[in-house]
């Protein structure tokens, strides 16, 4: 049963990642990204990381994806040409990609992984405890970073609006 579920998730995740990588139309890539994000969230959930799965759905599928679709629709002329996602130098990249893929798969397949079943239940409360005790400093730093990103994005977009007004 677990293998069947994993096979389904594998097909959804990798299939939509293939569409993201190879689609000729940028808007198809953006919408195929939903499948990848939800597939990764499902992977987290069957790995018993339920809080991370929820965070993945909220942050990626709810936030980053909406931003990306907004950027696609604001910047590229999707109604005018079908081929709005041009591809360059793929002849050089495909050997690199396939070489990396084969190297990694041979490394993964050659080793015997020592696995022990997870003994840490109730991940939300344990993650909360860890964030407020052992990882308190990175937690605070990441909140300052989020604030800086918010202010920075506002400043970057505002400057160009002012230049447009002056013209």
């Amino acid at each position, binding site marked *: 049963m677990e293998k069947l579920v994993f096979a389904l998730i594998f097909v959804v995740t990798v299939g939509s990642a293939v569409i993201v990588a190879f689609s000729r139309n940028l808007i198809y890539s953006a919408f195929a990204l939903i499948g990848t*994000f939800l597939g990764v969230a499902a992977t987290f959930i069957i790995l018993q990381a339920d809080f991370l799965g929820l965070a993945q759905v909220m942050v990626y599928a709810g936030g980053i994806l909406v931003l990306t679709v907004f950027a696609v629709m604001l910047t590229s002329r999707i109604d005018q040409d079908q081929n709005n996602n041009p591809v360059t*130098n793929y002849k050089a990249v495909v050997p690199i990609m396939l070489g990396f893929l084969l190297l990694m*798969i041979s490394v993964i397949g050659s080793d015997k992984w020592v696995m022990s079943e997870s003994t840490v239940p109730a991940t939300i409360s344990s993650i909360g405890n860890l964030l407020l005790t052992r990882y308190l400093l990175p937690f605070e730093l990441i909140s300052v970073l989020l604030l800086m*990103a918010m202010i920075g994005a506002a400043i970057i977009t505002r400057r160009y609006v002012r230049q447009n007004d002056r013209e």
Partner: protein
Amino acid sequence: MGITGYLVMATIVFSLGIYTVCTRRNAVAYLMGIELMLNAANINFVAFAHYNGKNLDGQIFSLFVIALAACESVIALAIVLGIYRSYRSIDTDNVATLKN
């Protein structure tokens, strides 16, 4: 099956991210490739944390990666919109001037 399936899935998604970043000329498509690579790294972190079985450090790290990806995405898309306003294009071959 164990951890191998998850590692193979993460590797495939990561290679597709490399392909997307290296071949696309559209700046938003670059960002999609970067998101693919970050997601692949997260799969690895969570899989190792699950099969390690002693602590949750991998999940915490993955949480930080998600927050960093959100920051990166916001800033990069703001820059892309700014570039589009001044160049009327986000094709990275056209945006090659450093000044004026």
